[in-house]
């Protein structure tokens, strides 16, 4: 391996290692990442199971409980929160300065941002599998093989949602502004998707909202995970997720460009 290639590899390993250490040190973040979807699964789903009947729809072969239905949506929610939290840490890093250390590394900027993205995605995988383990233990039965077939989809969706967070962080100057974006991004994305209810039910209520749900990329994250968890491939969903990941990341790289994006704003 050439020295230049080795540098890329060592840098990637370094960024992942640092993100891992930070994750270990921030136990509250890990616990919050688990508690949030578990509350939905154990409390919200228990309350709503009698109200929301779920008919047999693909990828399910039989009637399922509401808890079973929302598991993929909650998996996607974990990654959505993680993507946003990673970008929160980017804003925090930038304010605190350690993002500057990363961006002054003598490697292409897109690669440095990509390292960050990979590291954030790996952290989201840990969170998702910890959640699935508890869900399996307590309330739902998942196909054992689904744990493996889910993995590539989780990598793609983790990259997509991380890239979205990175794109948002490139437009935000201070932490205070970020709280607003969380409300305007996380909640609409989550509720206007198939995470909590099948889209056909939404269509019965409102054609317009259904249209928005269909256009929401997060719907495809949920569906890609749902199919993968039950050993099926939703090609359309996977393609949308991959395409969005590419577009969001390209825009984030532009956002972090020294000549264009956030860097040009006056220091606070």
């Amino acid at each position, binding site marked *: 391996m050439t*020295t230049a290639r*080795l*540098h*890329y590899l*060592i*840098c990637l*390993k*370094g*960024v992942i*290692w*640092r993100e891992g*250490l*930070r994750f270990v*040190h*921030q136990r509250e973040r890990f616990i919050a990442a688990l508690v949030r979807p578990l509350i939905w699964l154990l409390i919200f789903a228990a309350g709503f199971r009698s109200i929301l009947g779920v008919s047999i729809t693909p990828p399910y072969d039989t009637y399922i409980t509401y808890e079973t239905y929302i598991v993929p949506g909650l998996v996607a929610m974990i990654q959505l929160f993680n993507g946003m939290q990673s970008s929160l840490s980017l804003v925090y890093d930038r*304010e*605190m*300065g*350690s993002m*500057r*250390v*990363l*961006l*002054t*590394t*003598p*490697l*292409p900027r897109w690669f440095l941002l990509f390292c960050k993205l990979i590291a954030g995605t790996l952290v989201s995988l840990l969170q998702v599998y910890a959640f699935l383990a508890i869900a399996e233990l307590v309330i739902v039965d998942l196909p054992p093989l689904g744990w493996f077939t889910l993995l590539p989809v989780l990598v793609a969706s983790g990259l997509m949602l991380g890239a979205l967070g990175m794109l948002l962080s490139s437009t935000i100057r201070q932490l205070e502004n970020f709280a607003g974006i969380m409300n305007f991004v996380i909640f609409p994305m989550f509720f206007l998707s198939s995470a909590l209810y099948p889209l056909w039910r939404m269509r019965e209520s409102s054609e317009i909202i259904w249209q928005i749900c269909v256009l929401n990329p997060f719907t495809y994250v949920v569906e890609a995970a749902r199919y993968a968890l039950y050993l099926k491939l939703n090609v359309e969903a996977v393609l949308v997720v991959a395409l969005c990941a590419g577009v969001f990341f390209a825009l984030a790289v532009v956002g972090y460009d*020294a*000549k264009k994006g956030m*860097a*040009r*704003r*006056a*220091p606070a």
Partner: protein
Amino acid sequence: MEAAKFGLGVEINGLHFAYGSKTALDGVSLSIRPGRFTAILGPNGAGKSTLFSLLCGLIASREGSIRVLGVDLAKAPRDALAQMGIVFQQQTLDLDLSVAQNMAYFGALRGLSRKDCERRATICLERMGLEGREQEKARNLNGGHRRRLEIARALLCEPTLLLLDEPTVGLDVPSRTGLVEHVHQLCADSRLTVLWATHLVDEVWPNDDLVVLHQGRVRAAAAVEDVLDKTGCADVNAAFAALTAATKQASSADAATP
């Protein structure tokens, strides 16, 4: 300053930079001599941090050029960055990580193997008086030692140019004095080119080179004694006051002219 006589340092020509409609740097041209301690002195808002951000490629200017150690920053930013050690004004350590882990992370960013990084880290930490503290969390270091750790980290890749943007901000007087002495010594011992931004005149030593930056313009750029000769002042404090006051008067006169 006659850069050509001393070989390659930093050459800045006609640099302009604005944040929207607000001009931060207005036609800055400078030559920084290699192997020298150059203090960039200016009040808050003079454009020092903007100049540093441009020098380390965090932002880019559409007007003017920067050559770092002979390398055009716009054309080969990575080659230029590879020769720089940078200490930012903001704290940039991972406080929950140990001293050694902070060094290891930076070494990885710079492509150092773990062994090489550990070897160099030992030398750099010793050089900055932090030997034996490798396993301590950065959070447990006092402000002065955190700054030293950042300098040790910046030295990890044996840079030829060390940039420090107001590194003494927030430090108590003894820590500040110690840090200023330490970096001057470092410059003298290793012939490192040091660019030190500050708004505190007592951080400038008589043998340093001095750049006075005010309202985005260079007011003076020469060895300290030459600046004193030119302004007819007895010390840097008086020269700095004279150079920045002259500007204020000129600005007032400009404003008064119909």
